[in-house]
């Protein structure tokens, strides 16, 4: 059917985009990978290869070890709370309420804000000498939380050169992130709840199931694919997080709120340790890839099958 010259047109039309992605994504990643194996740790550019030296340095580094701990703590808190909050909000908004669109819009609007704006505002809301603590004080709370200024780590297990556990300051940052992202989880779950057919619910009801049984046994299993997508999307945001923490707390005292994104930025562009910065970036990329590549592959399999 198609003439030969015509078959070439679609390919030609996406060629510029393909070339751009090939250079800006794959080319630059390879380049960063190369830099991470050099000794370019001063202002003067160097292409001298030193093997895994930068990686060895990073994994023994107090700051990078702290970053890995903080990322783990932040990821668990952020994903868990965002999903719970999102599911809870979605169920409430989905109970045929009046003013549904108003409530939906209120819960989603933080998504339209920049992480920088969120960081600036939450820094003020959770400021330990004012903000939420004023309210807590008037309620009679005596041990006021120090929020993001706390240097406490629980349970404080000594591993490597750091104390492992949940840094209390991370909770404050996670709260701001949950505030920003739970509307997204709500929107996803809402779309999922709407696609569970009424027949299915009705059938369960006829069988004598209570509302909470219907939710647990009928609706929740149907939401599983959405939960899976959410976990992957939220986890990759969490592994990459930079702006929110940079704007709200920075690395924090003893690096209690530092993350690889912040370390990479500071060591590369403030300290001129390009090779170490490249090393951090490659580790971040690897962590994200472990999550995203299987997700992409399975999405495409599903589409074909």
């Amino acid at each position, binding site marked *: 059917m198609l003439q030969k010259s015509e078959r070439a047109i679609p390919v030609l039309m996406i060629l510029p985009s393909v070339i751009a992605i090939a250079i800006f994504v794959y080319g630059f990643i390879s380049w960063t990978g190369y830099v991470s194996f050099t000794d370019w740790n001063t202002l003067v550019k160097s292409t001298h290869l030193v093997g895994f030296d930068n990686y060895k340095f990073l994994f023994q580094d107090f700051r990078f070890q702290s970053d890995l701990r903080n990322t783990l703590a932040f990821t668990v808190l952020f994903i868990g709370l965002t999903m719970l909050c999102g599911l809870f909000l979605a169920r409430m908004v989905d109970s045929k309420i009046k003013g549904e669109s108003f409530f939906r819009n209120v819960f989603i609007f933080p998504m339209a804000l920049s992480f920088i704006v969120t960081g600036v505002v939450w820094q003020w809301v959770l400021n330990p000498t*004012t903000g939420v603590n004023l309210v807590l004080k008037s309620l009679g709370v005596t041990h006021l939380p120090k929020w993001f200024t706390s240097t406490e780590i629980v349970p404080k297990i000594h591993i490597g050169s750091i104390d492992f556990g949940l840094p209390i300051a991370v909770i404050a940052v996670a709260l701001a992130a949950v505030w920003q992202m739970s509307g997204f989880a709500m929107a996803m779950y809402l779309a999922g709840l709407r696609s569970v057919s009424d027949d299915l619910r009705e059938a369960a009801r006829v069988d004598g199931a209570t509302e909470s049984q219907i939710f647990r046994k009928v609706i929740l299993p149907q939401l599983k694919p959405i939960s899976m997508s959410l976990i992957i999307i939220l986890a990759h945001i969490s592994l990459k997080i930079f702006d929110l923490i940079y704007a709200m707390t920075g690395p924090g005292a003893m690096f209690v709120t530092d993350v690889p994104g912040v370390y990479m930025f500071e060591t590369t562009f403030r300290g001129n340790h390009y090779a170490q910065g490249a090393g951090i970036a490659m580790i971040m990329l690897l962590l994200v890839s472990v999550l995203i590549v299987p997700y992409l592959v399975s999405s495409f399999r599903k589409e074909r099958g």
Partner: protein
Amino acid sequence: MHKSTVGRYLLYLLLIILAALFLVPVYVMVITSFKGLKEITLDQMWHLPAKLDFSGYKEAYAKLVPSLRNSFLLAIPATVLSSLLGSMNGYVLSKWTFRGSNVLFALMLFGMFIPYQSVLIPLIQFMQSIHLYNSIPGLVLVHIVYGLPICTLMFRNFYVGIPTEMLEAARIDGTGFFGIYRRIMLPLSISGFVVVGIWQFTSVWNEFLFAVTLTTQKQQPIMVALQNLSGSQIVQWNVQMAGALLAALPTLLVYVLLSRYFVRGLLAGSIKG
């Protein structure tokens, strides 16, 4: 189905409390921004301003207006161009698939998930070598390229829903690749452009990492300027909050006016459209 009235009231009560909690940061931001110097003491944080004072806005506006301008000059062209390219890519990848086009699409999509730290060092060197470092056109280019995956994805998922029979009918009438795009796809994708446009505008406006590493001082977009404003110890809280509100206003306005489309973009970003 028969929920008790008491339960209903509790549900509404809970919803109102939660909505209020979600709006607390906005309340704090708004009231603080309208306070005068005397009122921004720590113990009066929750109080409404005694009278509206615009000095915070005056100072924030004076400091931020050049970067607000930069952000508009950045976000508008970047949004328009990446939407147009994304639409063309989506058209090809949904209706003119060829051998290997699915693999190509998957390789493209990977680009939207990568941590941008992993391309930053070569990117800066590259931008310097083509003399676009520290310029708004340079940032526009960067945002177009890294916006391509998501825009392509959104348009492709949108176009998959347009029945292929329509295209085949047009082909029999002798309409070619571009004719179909112009006469069938484009008129049907107005809402697609709105969704993608809002998404791109919001992301570019709110972006920070590229902005802070690829520009300095006069070329800085708004989020970098806001971060500098709040990072300096001498700037008062009313100025910071007024600045945060000014920086957030364009995307908030877009959201308030077009929230339906914004939410559709939110959901379209998760691969399965």
